[in-house]
């Protein structure tokens, strides 16, 4: 966040009392003090800091929620809401301004309590001889829970057109010994730190700066350790089942690790690679069922929208059953994730990566820059080869295979992205993403139909309820199939955009050149 031009913040030195400060200001200004405030507030944000990224802070005081601008401290909206226990979602808020602001930012992510801070202070208006406000001073004490001493802050808010008066205030403050500049969010950041967090310390995006001179072994170890960190950090959220994104992020990190192990051969010793391929394959497998059900449940609204109202009750019944199944799967997932075997395997992975290999693999010492271009280019060629065969009649399974190829290419580009010029890389990623989006949507539709067909097969015969469900599922199948057909028509053009000469040339230029020069 940038510092708001109108607000300056300093620490109030221990030797100076608030009364002393105000007395010094009273020598040159009239003072108009607002009533004192004081409250213990709990700051909340999503695990990936979605509000903070928007420059917002949100805190709750009981059921009273305040969303404000982090820099200026200006309140955007203050409203009633749920009491913040372990977590809550945007939809838990009553309809109104706050919910409207939170929903698009948070999406399906929940709010988690961050820092607990006791805030107290008052605002004082500084008046000139016309009793006109020419500046505002806020003296505030911020005491994070568990800390011994409060941070005592003085903030100066200027009023436009009264610069000379503000200079006078600054001079008076300096003369009174107020000199140490502080962050107005010090209570918040210190409180987060007490909980082991710091703003923007988690992002689902893979971002790792590689050094081109690193050996392949060193670079891959850092890549895997970054992914392992993502896995470990998401485990508590998965166990507590706060929101579906924890599991999703965890699974993406697992998938990236598996891709790494299969794409980058001969950098880790063969037996190590094989062993951990199995570990992560197992992790992927036992986290799958819950995630699949999450995906269906997240599509509930849009599925209901596909059906005429008369068929909807049958579908609601179907989703209710699915939610029950998810609960069962989640329990199994928790058990598997907590199991000693899992914990031990992840620990072993970490130790293996940090340790020297007894028998280094053939390519372990190769500069990562040389390896990277080769891998990305190979994946690209594979996508282009399979992609050219794509047309409106391609069977679902082959479309799926191309989708996986694209994913591998994407992961390879992400792993080694920091070695290449940013702008060109982003262009390529953008083109790839467009193709991936179409293939991803297509695959979702395909998987959903498959699941519906399976459900239909196992539906018991007889009752009115199953008839309703069957009708709803039939209607849904029809709608999904139709959309899937429509997507097919776009295959050729989507791929044409990706596989054109320009993109191909750029791929070769970016990932081929370095290899030659090496």
């Amino acid at each position, binding site marked *: 966040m940038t510092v708001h031009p109108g607000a300056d913040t300093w620490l109030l030195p221990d030797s100076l009392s608030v009364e002393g400060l105000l007395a010094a200001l009273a020598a040159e200004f009239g003072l108009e003090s607002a009533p004192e405030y004081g409250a213990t507030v709990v700051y909340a944000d999503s695990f990936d800091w979605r509000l903070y990224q928007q420059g917002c802070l949100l805190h709750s005081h009981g059921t009273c929620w305040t969303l404000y601008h982090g820099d200026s401290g200006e309140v955007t909206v203050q409203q009633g809401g749920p009491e913040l226990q372990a977590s809550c979602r945007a939809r838990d808020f009553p309809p109104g301004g706050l919910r409207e602001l939170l929903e698009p930012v948070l999406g399906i992510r929940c709010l988690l309590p961050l820092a607990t801070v006791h805030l107290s202070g008052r605002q004082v*208006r500084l008046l000139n001889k*016309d*009793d*006109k*406000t020419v500046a505002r001073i806020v003296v505030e004490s911020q005491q994070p829970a568990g800390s011994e001493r409060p941070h005592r802050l003085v903030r100066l808010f*200027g*009023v*436009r*057109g*009264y610069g000379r008066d503000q200079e006078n205030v600054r001079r008076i403050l300096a003369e009174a010994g107020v000199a140490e500049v502080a962050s107005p969010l010090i209570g918040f950041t210190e409180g987060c730190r007490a909980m082991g967090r710091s703003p923007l310390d988690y992002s689902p995006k893979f971002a790792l700066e590689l050094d081109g001179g690193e050996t392949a072994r060193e670079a891959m170890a850092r890549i895997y350790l970054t992914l392992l960190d993502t896995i470990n950090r998401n485990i508590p959220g998965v166990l507590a089942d706060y929101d579906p994104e924890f599991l999703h992020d965890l699974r993406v990190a697992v998938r990236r690790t598996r891709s790494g192990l299969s794409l980058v051969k001969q950098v880790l010793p063969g037996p190590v690679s094989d062993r951990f391929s199995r570990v992560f394959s197992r992790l992927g497998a036992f986290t799958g069922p819950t995630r699949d059900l999450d995906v269906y449940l997240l599509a509930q609204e849009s599925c209901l929208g596909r059906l005429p109202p008369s068929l909807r009750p049958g579908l609601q019944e179907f989703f209710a059953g699915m939610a029950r199944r998810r609960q069962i799967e989640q329990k199994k997932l928790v058990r598997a994730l907590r199991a000693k075997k899992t914990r031990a395997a992840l620990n072993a992975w970490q130790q293996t990566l940090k340790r020297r290999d007894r028998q280094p693999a053939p390519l372990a010492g190769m500069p990562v820059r040389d390896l990277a271009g080769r891998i990305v280019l190979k994946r690209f060629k594979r996508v282009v080869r399979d992609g050219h065969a794509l047309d409106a009649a391609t069977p679902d399974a082959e479309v799926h295979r191309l989708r996986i190829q694209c994913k591998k290419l994407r992961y390879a580009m992400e792993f080694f992205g920091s070695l290449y010029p940013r702008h060109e890389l982003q262009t390529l990623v953008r083109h790839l993403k467009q193709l991936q989006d179409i293939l991803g949507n297509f695959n979702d539709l395909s998987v959903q139909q498959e699941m519906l067909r399976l459900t239909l097969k196992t539906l018991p015969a007889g009752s009115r309820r199953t008839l309703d469900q069957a009708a709803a599922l039939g209607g849904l199948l029809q709608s999904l199939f139709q959309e899937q057909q429509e997507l097919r028509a776009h295959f050729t053009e989507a791929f044409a955009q990706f596989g054109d000469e320009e993109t191909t040339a750029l791929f070769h230029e970016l990932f081929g050149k370095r290899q030659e020069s090496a």
Partner: protein
Amino acid sequence: MSVIAVYNIKGGVGKTATSVNLAYFSAQHHGKTLLLDMDPQGSASFYFRIRPPKKFGAKKLLKGGRHIEENIKGTDYPGLDMLPADFSYRNIDLALDECRKSHKRLSKVLAPLQEEYDRIILDCPPNLTLLSENIFYAADCILAPVIPTTLSLLSLEQLFAFLDEIGQDPDKVVLFFSMVEKRKKMHAEMMRSLRERNRVLQTVIPYSADIERMGVYRQPVAAALPASAAAAAYESLWHEIRDLLAI
């Protein structure tokens, strides 16, 4: 973004009280607002306790740009700034006459301010001059307070005739009744007949000692006396205008 000019050819109809209170509510409802005091008497500036800036006047106003930006002052209320008036505005027509495209000058001067402010409210002097023409050209809405008397009716006819003369859309004009005294039968009758016109707001601002006393406490009536009937009337007026202009 919208520019609202509070205007009437007649003086003493409550223009400044309206500008000051509307600007206050506009800022209260999350819209960064600039109040431009165009009246050389500087009453709006006085109400906000803002003194006329030194080295500022009609010519600087018409130059625009940094000459204006440097002289904008924050009021006591968050989100509400104002450009105070200067006594030299009384000669503004002479200065305007020297400008090229003299009837569009104000509009040009306001253009860059529209990026910073959600709403600009003009407190206009009571006359029909080249400045008025500028104001009508620049404004999205000409808000005219009307005391329901025959003389007011006359001044309204003059306003519409002038707009016709300079080729401005008469639909820019929005009327509301100001300084209304319930016990006066004539007020009620005039209001009834005037309501047959287009674009007459429902809200009526009563004649009120609380509004008259604004000069004593030097604050918007809603800031000084938030529970007063006058404050409620201005708030309701603001809501009606906001809905009408969809701002």
